[in-house]
């Protein structure tokens, strides 16, 4: 690892080489490179100043290497792009030449100068200032050793959609251990809701469910569903993550998914089914969908009687006992009072009845309910115990897996790398009020239609109107709802054109209806995508170029009666059209998850303005984040279709594998250190350090920095009143030189 020919120059005999890069025309078109070179020649200690078309090329690097080897220079300045781009490249070249790699400094004259400055003259002046700053600074550089830290070989994948599944399987197949954490009760994500995928129209379930069960059974994958990452600490290679297991009220390890509890449940049956976008209903205990992985039910505490009423209502017929007619009328009144929410009165009445008939089941139950409503939970529970109702699900479960008193649990794990694959949410159709979603029943979102066309969906694949039976004869698909719109999202959601085409095809195929696509532009770049569009054009699907203005039930003719009218300007025809249809489908765009901001903070990564997680570099580091060791996969980084998501998940897995496979991480040696003779032992730095890396030496009574814990922020250095605390690569001396250099000459 260490170069054999490292020479140690310190501040004596400094010979600075300045290499100004043209970057093709990226720099040269705005900065007078020659003038900068001539300027650099007169700067202190500069022995070589030259220019080259592409300094980062092999030939460019070789100039540096040769100049060092021939003894012309022992400090290197490259004035080119951002250090975040090529600092490592040139440090390596410097080292290759035979001197310490930290005898190098970069001047950012592309991102900070040529790309942002209007006038060539101004740009040249600014470039000169930055070069001078670097020249001043580099003469104060010292030789440093790289730091290496061991890497924990386990990986955490957050999110169990197709991105998370793909990444987890890739890593697990490489023999590494993966924790896959999913916040929903099942993995599968959005893809599990789809029937067919574009453009091949292969069945989503057929390609996804095998992967889901592989995840479940893979010996290297620990799958935690209905769990969320609570806290992340540590750094690349050594993250400590706390995962919260939410209350599912089922022991996920023993449940066999027989659904006996679902059959036995007598709770309300009218709870909108989340998986079916509310198009069907479920009970409080339910299996999210038949192929749910793991095949474990869940109890919804917002609707289960155990949580809303304090218990399952008893079966009164079998063990009700006898009540005198007088008491019966009291009970009737008590029930009425309960309905009217007059709980005090109810309580009085039930007490009265129980005085003479203490075993009466129905009264006891009502009594318990009333106590529960009045907030006397303990008393209510006590009474319920006497009613002897065992919750139906508890009684029905053959494995004893129902645990209505389950508490949240926290697992703490150590991982070396984290892949975030938290996906997206779809745009809420009701936000575009002009399309009348939720106002007109037959306006649907595309995700609802995905469930309707799905063979295992609420209608078994029948495409019907909201009444549940009528087949539409005409359907309008409105593109760009919540995309390319100044009022909601400016960006293109990338997938909507293609899925709209897919839905158009499926609707046409299943119902024979006339299908109208209202689009701004058809965006179908991708393998086989344009061909799919062309195929649809031949299937007699109508394409109207013009964003729909509104969906209305304002009719102008008999033909429009009882229909929804889509008004749009047909920009090819040059006129406003009214198209009456039975069903409107809103092709809703993709948005970041509601809690993207919270997640971002948890993992200390960045977001774009829209809320998509920010990649380190859009082209060269598309799955890296600004926090080393944390990678992105799938739509959490930006709207993406399935092929791109899977490809990116593979890339994220490869990055994570590269990190954990080599077994160590190289850290910037930018840690703080204390110059013993200057430290007075005031301990200001000790309190400031966020990583408790600074302690007080009990004998010398001065501060000591533990370089293994120091992350190199330099906060202690800025605060040290005696200048004893210093930061490698950012010493006071170096920064003062930089300040002077940046202002001294121009």
């Amino acid at each position, binding site marked *: 690892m260490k170069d054999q020919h490292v020479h140690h120059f310190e501040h004596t005999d400094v010979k600075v080489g300045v290499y100004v890069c043209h970057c093709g025309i990226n720099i040269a078109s705005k900065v007078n490179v020659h003038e900068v070179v001539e300027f650099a020649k007169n700067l202190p200690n500069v022995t070589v100043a030259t220019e080259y078309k592409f300094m980062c090329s092999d030939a460019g690097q070789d100039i540096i290497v040769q100049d060092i080897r021939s003894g012309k220079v022992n400090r290197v300045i490259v004035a080119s792009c951002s250090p975040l781009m090529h600092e490592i490249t040139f440090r390596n070249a410097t080292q290759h030449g035979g001197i310490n790699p930290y005898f190098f400094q970069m001047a950012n004259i592309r991102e900070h100068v040529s790309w942002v400055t209007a006038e060539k003259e101004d740009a040249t002046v600014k470039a000169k200032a930055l070069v001078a700053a670097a020249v001043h600074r580099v003469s104060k550089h010292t030789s440093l050793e790289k730091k290496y830290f061991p890497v924990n070989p386990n990986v955490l994948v957050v999110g169990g959609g197709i991105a998370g599944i793909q990444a987890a399987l890739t890593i697990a197949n490489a023999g590494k251990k993966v924790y896959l954490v999913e916040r929903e009760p099942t993995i599968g994500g959005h893809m599990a809701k789809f029937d067919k995928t574009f453009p091949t129209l292969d069945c989503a379930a057929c390609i996804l469910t095998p992967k889901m069960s592989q995840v479940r059974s893979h010996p290297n994958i620990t799958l935690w569903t209905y769990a969320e990452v609570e806290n992340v600490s540590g750094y690349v290679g050594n993250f400590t993550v706390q995962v919260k297991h939410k209350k599912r009220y089922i022991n996920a390890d023993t449940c066999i998914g027989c659904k006996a509890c679902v059959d036995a449940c007598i709770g309300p049956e009218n709870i909108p089914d989340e998986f079916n976008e509310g198009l069907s209903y479920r009970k409080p205990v339910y299996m999210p969908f038949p192929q749910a992985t793991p095949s474990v039910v869940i109890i919804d505490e917002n609707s289960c009687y155990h949580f809303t009423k304090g218990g399952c209502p008893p079966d009164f017929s079998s063990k009700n006992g006898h009540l005198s007619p007088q008491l019966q009328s009291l009970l009737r009144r008590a029930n009425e009072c309960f309905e009217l929410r007059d709980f005090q009165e109810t309580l009085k009445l039930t007490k009265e009845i129980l005085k003479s008939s203490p075993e009466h089941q129905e009264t006891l139950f009502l009594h318990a309910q009333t106590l529960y409503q009045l907030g006397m939970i303990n008393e209510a529970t006590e009474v319920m115990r006497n009613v002897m109702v065992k919750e139906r699900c508890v009684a029905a479960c053959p494995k004893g897996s129902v645990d209505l008193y389950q508490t949240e649990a926290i697992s703490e794990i150590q991982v070396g790398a984290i892949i975030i694959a938290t996906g997206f949410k779809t745009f809420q159709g009701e936000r575009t*009020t*002009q399309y*009348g979603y939720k106002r007109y029943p037959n306006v649907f979102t595309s995700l609802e239609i995905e469930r309707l066309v799905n063979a295992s969906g609420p209608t078994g694949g029948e495409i019907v109107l909201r009444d549940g039976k009528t087949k539409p004869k005409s359907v309008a698909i409105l593109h760009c709802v919540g995309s390319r719109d100044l009022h909601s999202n400016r960006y293109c959601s990338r997938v909507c054109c293609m899925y709209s085409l897919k839905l158009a095809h499926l609707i046409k195929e299943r119902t024979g209806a006339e299908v109208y696509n209202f689009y701004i532009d058809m965006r179908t770049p991708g393998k086989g995508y344009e061909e799919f569009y062309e195929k649809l054009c031949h299937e007699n699907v109508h394409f109207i170029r013009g964003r729909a203005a509104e969906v209305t*039930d*304002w009719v102008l003719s008999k033909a429009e009666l009882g229909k929804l009218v889509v008004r749009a300007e047909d920009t090819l025809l040059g006129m406003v059209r009214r198209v009456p249809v039975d069903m409107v489908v809103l092709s809703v765009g993709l948005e970041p998850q509601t809690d993207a901001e919270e997640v971002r903070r948890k993992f200390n990564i960045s977001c774009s303005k829209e809320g998509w997680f920010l990649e380190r570099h859009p082209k060269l580091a598309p799955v890296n984040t600004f926090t080393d060791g944390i990678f992105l996969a799938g739509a959490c980084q930006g709207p993406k279709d399935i092929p791109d998501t899977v490809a990116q998940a593979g890339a994220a897995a490869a990055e994570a594998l590269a990190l954990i496979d080599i077994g160590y991480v190289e850290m910037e040696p930018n840690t703080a250190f204390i110059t013993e003779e200057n430290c007075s032992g005031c301990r200001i730095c000790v309190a400031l350090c966020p990583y408790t890396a600074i302690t007080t030496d009990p004998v010398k009574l001065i501060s000591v920095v533990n370089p293994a814990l120091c992350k190199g922020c330099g906060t202690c250095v800025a605060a040290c009143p005696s200048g004893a605390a210093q930061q490698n690569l950012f010493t006071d001396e170096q920064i003062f030189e930089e300040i002077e250099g940046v202002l001294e000459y121009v």
Partner: protein
Amino acid sequence: MSYLYYPGCCCSMKASGKAYEESLMAVLKKLGVTLEELKDWNCCGATMYMAIDQMQAFGMASRNLALAEQQCPNKTPELMAPCSACYVVMNKTKHFIEDYKEQVGTPIRNALKEAGFTYTGKTKVRHPLDILVNDIGLDKIRQHVKKPLKGLKVASYYGCLLVRPYSEFDDVHYPRSMDNLMEALGASSLEWPLKTRCCGGSMTGTVEDAGLRLSYIILNEAERRGADVVVTACPFCQTNLECFQQRIQRKSKGGISDLPILFFTQLVGYAMGIPERELGFHRLFVPFHFSPKQVVTEGVE
């Protein structure tokens, strides 16, 4: 609660919109709101000015905004503009001064300076509907309702200016605040898609056929959906829909029948039990009658 009051001129509060002003004053008085008229106000700069020379219109509107600041030096001036056109023009001026600092902000501020005004931008322009629904609140209004409008089918008509384009207090495409207000009075509000369609505006005065056609569309749709009354929040809409009703009937060959067009404040006052005369009902061309008894016999549901 107190507001500055900007009556507006061309067809509004002191002129053909008299009933609006009367009912608004009566309602606000009942609700304990005090008004202070903006001293020395001038035309807002709507329609003609805005269409021919925007800068002149901005100049006129900004004078009113500056006057408000002058009159309320120690607090945020809240300038109530009941006419939708005044409301939108003054809001537009505020936005343009802010959004186009160089092209609009600086010249307007300079012009105001010449006239001895300063404008800091703190004046808020408010519409009575916004004030009733969001400042006073529906709960308080419900408490004041003496004669609930049970069974009355009201088509709330916002017009094209009130919530557009700035959407200060309600949705741009499908506003609900006036509907909520009507429901608070006990009336049933009509769901209809033409809430924010244009009434024809000043077109009725210039290209009459085009203007009347737009009014006809609104009246026809309200009637088709069984509205007993249309309520508006703009003197211009009210004039177009009501005063020209007979002409529209003639032109459409009996396509529509008489439909009362009220200011929303008239109906609020009516439900509060304020005498009809104080609410300007006598100024209506199409008289409004409401007897809850008759409605009950017809069957409400």
